[in-house]
């Protein structure tokens, strides 16, 4: 096994660990809606929620990096260049995340000055981490880029997938630089902020997960490189062709000119089309392989990724992407419903799939199957679909009562939050969150023991 692959395992383990922290923080955030006095005066909703969404971004990024460190040496046939630095960066990354989490929980707020921004909390959604931590994350990403580019140069070889991956690193890093400024003007602040958020999740990350799924497909089903690369290019063309200007669906109401209503609505309304193509593709792959694979969990999670991306991003996104609907749905639990479904479908399922793939290879198991992964798969997906369903009900109630009828004042907000539909939705969401959390526990149990419970093939791992 390459050293790079040992590092990959560490990254995936850390990813699953922070997935747990995220789930716990999510449950806490959800609980405030039911009991607003929870930890009052000690730790408030905004801190729990910050932990929830920041660890979300972190565990997915770590999952992607793990997947790439795993496939990189196999793809190029040599050990990853700069692996020592990469190993140090892994510990730095974990340390920084833990330190920031501790600062958020203990210190919580800094001063309303530059020092506060550098040391404690920047208070911008998803990129709350203080600047010193953001700088460390930039360093981690630069070393990661160096690993990829350096390995390609030393191997004197560049595959199509690697080429896409390397080009994608540029926007990945450059967009993250928006984690630093504190523009005085909220419109300007949000303008660039959406470059980071939208162009990450609906462009850069889609390409990243596309590359990872392409590598996983070749490894899992033995699909030929020519086919996989052709489809990767098609996917990149369509996703970016619709997603880049689809950015405009966040520029309806932040002070930007009115032409964004037409541009944003138009291009983002095309975004579901490539996602539908991917679903058809998944059906094809599943069918031509007669659902036969030695790694059922990885395969099922990969299917869940294709479907979840389409339904969470495409269907749930399309509901709210036309400006006339978005005017009322914007910034309500309806948005939260879409955000959960899309992130889960597009990214979380993919990372879990890779984790299974890697574990089978590492443990040299002829087959990884059993009942535990089915329980985990069922509880996680059932819990998540339950959460987005109940959030949708609450979101409908909120858009109706607060926005359409009440005109969005404080009083209208309170009326919506106290309506029976909304309140019941919040209770049901919490219950589904508990099911999700149970699924997480089953997932961890399964990942720890899979391939160990079933008799392992020989003693030696299957890798060089």
């Amino acid at each position, binding site marked *: 096994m390459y050293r790079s692959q040992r590092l990959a395992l560490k990254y995936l383990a850390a990813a699953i660990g922070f997935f747990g922290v995220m789930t716990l923080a999510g449950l806490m955030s959800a609980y405030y809606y039911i009991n607003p006095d929870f930890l009052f005066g000690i730790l408030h909703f905004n801190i729990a929620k910050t932990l929830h969404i920041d660890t979300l971004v972190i565990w997915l990024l770590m999952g992607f990096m793990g997947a790439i460190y795993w496939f990189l040496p196999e793809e190029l046939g040599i050990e990853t260049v700069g692996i020592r630095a990469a190993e140090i960066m892994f510990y730095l990354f974990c340390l920084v995340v833990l330190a920031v989490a501790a600062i958020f929980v203990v210190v919580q707020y800094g001063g309303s000055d530059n020092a506060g921004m550098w040391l404690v909390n920047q208070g911008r959604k998803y990129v709350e981490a203080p600047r010193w931590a953001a700088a460390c994350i930039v360093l981690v990403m630069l070393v990661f880029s160096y690993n990829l580019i350096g390995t390609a140069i030393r191997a004197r070889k560049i595959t199509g997938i690697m080429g896409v991956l390397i080009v994608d690193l540029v926007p990945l890093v450059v967009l993250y630089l928006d984690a630093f400024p504190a523009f005085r003007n909220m419109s300007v602040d949000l303008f660039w902020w959406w470059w980071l958020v939208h162009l990450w999740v609906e462009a850069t990350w889609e390409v990243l997960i596309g590359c990872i799924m392409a590598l996983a497909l070749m490894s899992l089903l033995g699909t030929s490189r*020519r*086919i996989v690369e*052709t*489809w990767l290019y098609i996917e990149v063309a369509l996703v970016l062709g619709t997603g880049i200007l689809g950015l405009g669906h966040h520029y309806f109401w932040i002070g930007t000119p009115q032409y964004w209503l*037409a541009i944003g*609505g*138009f291009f983002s*309304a*095309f975004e*579901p*089309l490539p996602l*539908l*193509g991917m*679903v*058809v*593709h998944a*059906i*094809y792959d599943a*069918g*031509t392989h007669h659902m036969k694979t030695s790694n059922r969990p990885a395969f099922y999670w990969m299917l869940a990724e294709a479907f979840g991306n*389409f*339904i969470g991003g*495409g*269907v*749930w996104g*399309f*509901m*709210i992407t*036309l400006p*006339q*609907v978005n*005017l*009322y*749905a914007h910034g309500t639990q*309806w948005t939260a419903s879409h955000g959960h479904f899309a992130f889960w479908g597009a990214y979380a399922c993919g990372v879990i799939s890779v984790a299974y793939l890697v574990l089978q290879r590492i443990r040299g198991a002829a087959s990884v199957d059993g009942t535990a992964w089915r329980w985990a798969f069922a509880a996680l997906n059932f819990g998540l679909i339950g959460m987005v369903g109940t959030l949708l009900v609450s979101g*409908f109630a909120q*858009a*109706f*009562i607060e*926005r*359409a*009828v009440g005109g969005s004042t404080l009083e209208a907000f309170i009326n919506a939050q106290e309506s029976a539909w909304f309140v019941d939705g919040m209770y049901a969401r919490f219950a589904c969150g508990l099911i999700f959390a149970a699924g997480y526990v089953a997932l961890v149990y399964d990942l720890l023991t899979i391939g160990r419970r079933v008799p392992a093939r020989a003693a030696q791992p299957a890798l060089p």
Partner: protein
Amino acid sequence: MTGLALLETGLLLGVFVLLAGCYGVLYGVGRLVGRRAATAGAFACYALQCAVASAVVARAPLADFWKAFIAASTLAYLAIPPITWRFLEKTH
């Protein structure tokens, strides 16, 4: 837009894309196993999708631009599964 019209429109738009998904899945299954029933189901879903599109065009308080868009994209959705499938067979 009134509250009810809002929820109705949002739901119709969601169901519109969801039916496109059902059409795509059943179309693929139909081609894979060669069952008539699946393919028939696929086109039934598509027919429902057209019905939803007409409901949006007829009832939803959206601007004409978006109604034209929905009508046009209904045609695009018809084409995607067969084109994708043919291309998959060509490339594999």
